[in-house]
């Protein structure tokens, strides 16, 4: 921003740095940071609010309205149904197994990428991002192809009576695949920004590798790690496509909450479907609140501090 540039009306909100770039021309006279007329602004704001209402708020409200269509007793009955309870338990179990494993993997991957140089590093980063670009249905199918009865590992698994697809391990694997990037993606930019200076200082003062990790590296990224785990968890509990392929849809056993919602809806059981969906919505809202709290309280620690 150090080259001269006329105040462009096309740019609606010039940042503070742009305002500072032309102090002499604007001195002594207050000038609003935006140049749109009041009606234009009103139309833009109304459009944005309407969009949010129609796309986000209305569906969210309708989830709870449909869930409570038969009153509170109907809602409670729908959630205490054995199949619904089993779906809730399975969803929690899958999250509890897959999220910590992905947190460990994400931390290790981010640590390797940010603190070391090795051949194939950019390929490694690309591989971590792969689940973002692959359709979840394909993610599920590849597990069937590898671990299914006719898959590469199928004969071995069958010989040892190990059930992977259409059982808990397959559901956990598919969920982990889909949620791999969340923690690593959150940590890599921050750890790259922090560099290796702190670690080098600790090592030069006589700390061991593990001490350095526990006392320097981990505390530096703890809030970003928690943030990544939060997003990872939200996605793990909400995943439908990949899990649908490997679940086998056994009622009361291998149906997660999103699958149960679809099943109930297709059985014309709208109240129960939306009751289960409302739990997922509550989870999403709780995630949002925690995420906002983290951003508000620890925003500095979450982002790479540019320019300092």
């Amino acid at each position, binding site marked *: 921003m150090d080259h001269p540039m006329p105040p462009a009306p096309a740019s609606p909100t010039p940042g503070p740095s742009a305002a500072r770039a032309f102090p002499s021309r604007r001195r002594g006279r207050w000038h609003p940071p935006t140049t749109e007329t009041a009606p234009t602004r009103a139309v833009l704001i109304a459009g944005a609010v309407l969009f949010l209402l129609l796309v986000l708020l209305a569906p969210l409200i309708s989830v709870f309205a449909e869930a409570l269509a038969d009153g509170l007793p109907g809602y409670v009955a729908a959630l205490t149904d054995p199949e619904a309870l089993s779906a809730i*338990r399975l969803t*929690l*179990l899958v999250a*509890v*197994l897959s*999220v*910590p494993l992905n*947190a*460990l993997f994400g931390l290790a991957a981010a640590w390797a990428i940010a603190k070391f140089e090795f051949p194939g590093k950019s390929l490694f980063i690309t591989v971590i991002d792969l689940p973002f670009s692959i359709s979840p249905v394909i993610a599920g199918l590849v597990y*069937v192809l590898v671990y*299914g*009865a*006719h*898959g590469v590992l*199928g004969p071995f698994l*069958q010989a040892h*009576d190990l*059930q992977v*697809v*259409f059982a808990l391990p397959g559901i956990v694997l598919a969920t982990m695949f889909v949620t791999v990037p969340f923690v690593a993606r959150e940590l890599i930019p921050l750890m790259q920004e922090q560099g290796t200076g702190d670690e080098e200082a600790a090592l030069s003062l006589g700390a061991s590798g593990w001490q350095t990790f526990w006392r320097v590296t*981990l505390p530096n990224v*703890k809030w970003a*790690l*928690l943030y990544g*785990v939060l997003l990872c968890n939200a996605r793990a509990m909400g995943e439908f496509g990949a899990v649908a392929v490997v679940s*086998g*849809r*056994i*009622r*009361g*056993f291998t149906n997660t909450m999103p699958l149960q919602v679809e*099943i109930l*809806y*297709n*059985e*014309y059981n709208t109240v129960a479907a939306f009751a289960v969906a409302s739990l997922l919505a509550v989870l999403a809202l709780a995630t949002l609140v925690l995420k906002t*709290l*983290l951003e508000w*309280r*620890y925003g500095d620690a979450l982002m790479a501090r540019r320019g300092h």
Partner: protein
Amino acid sequence: MRVFRTLTPLALVRAALVGGAVLAATPVLAQAPLLNVSYDPTRELYRDYNLAFAAHWKEKTGQDIEIRQSHGGSGAQARAVIDGLEADVVTLALASDIDAIAKRTDKVPADWQARLPDHSAPYTSTIVFLVRAGNPKAIKDWDDLIRPGVEVITPNPKTSGGARWNHLAAWAWAAQTFGGDEDKIRAYIAELYRHVPVLDTGARGATTTFTKRGLGDVLLAWENEAFLALNELGPDQYEIVVPSISILAEPTVAVVEGNTEKHGTTEVATEYLTYLYSPVGQALAARHYYRPRHPDFAAPQDIARFPATTLITIDDPLFGGWPEAQARHFGDGGLFDQITAPPGQ
């Protein structure tokens, strides 16, 4: 904010691992359960039948039996069993789906259809039309479906067992009407698919499209699916129209012996399917709008709901049995592909 200061990520990981161990340790099963892998529209039938069978098994052997259910598109369910879903019995929409399991695995014997009476189809169904209340487009028979302005909802025969029966029922009517003139039959079927705005992947999805999304003037549906929609969504909203000719749909059942021998459930699985032919099983089938093989076992008022119509079987020379019909109509490059291919291909 105190909570955040005291919760380190490490503590979270520890808590998660402990929680996981507690959840995983919860006992899930006590004895070898039975897994019935079925197709979409049988959910309500097997929910009742499983209770009846558990009572019967308890009375007969003194054992408690737990029955698990899995539902989905018939073809997709067969695929899952082939890929390793540990079904003890399969109760699917058509014989060719169980044939596929027999062909691709050694878990079902090749002659499975001869193991139970009535070529392993304990109940039958047919294809009917579900129209909106008052039948505003005056749809009475198959030729009304291709009138201008009529939209037809039917799922994709490539993925849905029900859609294959729909296709063959339309073919049977056209064959009769046009005296077997193949060109005219093809022209009719092609015109019929031009009246279909959306091909869902499964029967239940097509029903939802017609009822909840309000698309189309007529739904080609399993008779039991049409009755269920009528009951669940209000008899004041829809009517069932039975065409002059339809097809005898035979949903078939089989024990997946390769799996039951491993689970030690061969005996209970065989009894589970045999009991479908008993007075209790037949009465339950009729109550859930499947046409029983033995109408005398069912409640007369249930039987009275099934209108008489001409039903062509899949073994009719017109179709020559499932293997031939499957290859000719629905195989790659088969009649469905030819008829629905875009012009110029």
